[in-house]
């Protein structure tokens, strides 16, 4: 692959070489089924439990509260569907937000078809859930609140502690999709009133295809994948031992590097945001200015369209993403950008750059220079910009 500047770390991350190394023996040497009886399979079992302990420690949870899954989307599906089915005698109402990942939103739509009722909370212009609106939305028959820890597009970190408290005051289960937050924002489950939490390995330099669902001890949740007795009968399927080992190693790495890594990401992010807002006119930052993921920058450039922006960045070796309709395969731009109140034409011109601590200041400088040229070029081609300039000069 040619030299690229990778600024799409919220989509996925590279597996660190040292993390890959920990996985290899479980492909080649200790390939035995971790559920088998013979000693040869014992190494796999030990490694799975070691990874579980690593993840539990990192979250302030107990190992038995961690269930391995096939990824964040599966964890979200499990938490919502299993809770809905387990609690349907008690109620049929679920509360979530308008800016959740599709793994939550589309699962909610599915549950609505089955007769459940879902309230989708609004967010303010910075993407924050309104706690008063949440309180008002709670009904006698509310069985679950699911609000993401941090948003994948605009990076806003939600008031999870307060939301958990409200949920528990009303005796309602609280699930959070922490796929973007895990390893990037401090999470201590001893401090937070969270009953279920989804996370994924590939957002923290681990492998794709492995996630967890944390389920607080005492919370009863039904089986999601039926079959063998893995994960205490809750999630059947032969253990993805190399993947689980990789998740454990990625967690260990994320834990050990946490402070320095986050500090560097924030520094790079703020440098990027500062330069872009200062040097490219008619640009806005989307998402919360302070309560935001350390690596997330999301901009809207007026008068330009996101896909064109991405294609031209790609020509220059820069990998990024956008919330424009053309990149989503529908006619509507991102539901998150619309939920924070952006008009369609401004939402179409959005650009998400998500950094890692492996990015450099030089890469950011190069990206800003290219962005200035590209946005300028697209504006010079834009009839919206033409009209705007004519309007201004009147």
């Amino acid at each position, binding site marked *: 692959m040619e030299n690229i500047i990778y600024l799409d770390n919220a989509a996925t991350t590279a597996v660190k070489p040292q993390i890959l190394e920990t996985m290899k023996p479980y492909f080649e040497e200790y390939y035995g089924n971790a559920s088998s009886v013979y000693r040869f399979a014992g190494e796999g079992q030990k490694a799975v439990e070691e990874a579980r302990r690593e993840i539990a420690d990192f979250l302030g949870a107990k190992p038995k509260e961690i269930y391995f899954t096939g990824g964040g989307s599966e964890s979200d599906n499990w938490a919502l569907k299993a809770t809905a089915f387990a609690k349907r005698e008690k109620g049929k109402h679920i509360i979530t937000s308008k800016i959740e990942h599709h793994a939550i939103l589309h699962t909610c739509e599915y549950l609505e078809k089955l007769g459940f009722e879902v309230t989708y909370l609004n967010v303010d212009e910075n993407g924050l859930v309104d706690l008063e609106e949440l309180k008002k939305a709670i009904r006698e028959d509310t069985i679950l609140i699911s609000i993401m820890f941090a948003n994948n597009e605009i990076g806003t970190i939600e008031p999870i502690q307060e939301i958990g408290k409200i949920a528990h005051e009303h005796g309602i289960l609280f699930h959070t999709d922490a796929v973007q937050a895990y390893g990037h924002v401090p999470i201590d489950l001893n401090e937070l009133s969270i009953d279920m939490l989804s996370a994924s390995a590939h957002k923290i330099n681990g492998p794709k295809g492995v996630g967890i669902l944390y389920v607080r001890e005492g919370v009863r949740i039904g089986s999601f994948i039926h079959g063998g007795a893995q994960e205490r009968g809750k999630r059947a399927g032969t253990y993805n031992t190399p993947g689980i080992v990789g998740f454990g190693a990625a967690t260990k790495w994320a834990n050990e590097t946490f402070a320095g890594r986050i500090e560097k990401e924030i520094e790079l992010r703020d440098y990027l945001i500062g330069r872009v807002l200062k040097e490219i006119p008619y640009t806005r930052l989307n998402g919360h200015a302070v309560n935001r993921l350390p690596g997330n920058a999301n901009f809207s450039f007026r*008068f*330009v*369209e996101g*896909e*064109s922006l*991405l*294609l031209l960045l*790609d*020509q220059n070796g820069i990998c990024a993403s956008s919330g*424009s*309709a*053309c*990149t989503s*395969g529908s*006619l509507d*731009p991102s539901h998150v950008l619309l939920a924070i109140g952006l*008009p*369609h*034409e401004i939402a*179409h011109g959005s650009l998400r750059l998500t950094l890692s601590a492996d990015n450099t200041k030089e890469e950011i400088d190069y990206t800003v220079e290219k962005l200035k040229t590209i946005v300028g070029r697209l504006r*010079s*081609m*834009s*009839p*919206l*910009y*033409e009209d705007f300039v004519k309007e201004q000069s009147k």
Partner: protein
Amino acid sequence: MSQVLEYSEKVMDHFNNPRNVGEIENASGVGTVGNAKCGDIMRIYLDIQDNVVKDAKFKTFGCGAAVATSSMATELIIGKTVEEALQITNKAVMEALDGLPPVKVHCSLLAEEAIHAALWDYAQKNHIVIPGLKPPVKDIEEVSEEK
């Protein structure tokens, strides 16, 4: 799927090196179609002399396919008589670009509409009737009025 992989080389060429970008002062006809809500706006300027399109320019707010179809549409129209210009279909624009991904076919329709809108403007300004030409339906003004 990655859009870059789905676009033909011709589409990428016209996106990266768009032909005839710009404006024509005192154009014989200007057509603007699409709306910002769905993410594509095309504006085509025509310079028509003696019933022949001498020059065409465009400005487009939109995706890679929108830029490429506008660029190709201006290429196809230059040198044509008004009657020939009216015959340029979205299919012709698509074929000239070696095809478009299915989700982008609407961009070629927009290019056809932009040509028609510019010809309509020309006809209105000159008080002539171009047989077979209908008034433009999708215009940026409609969106502005909604606000």
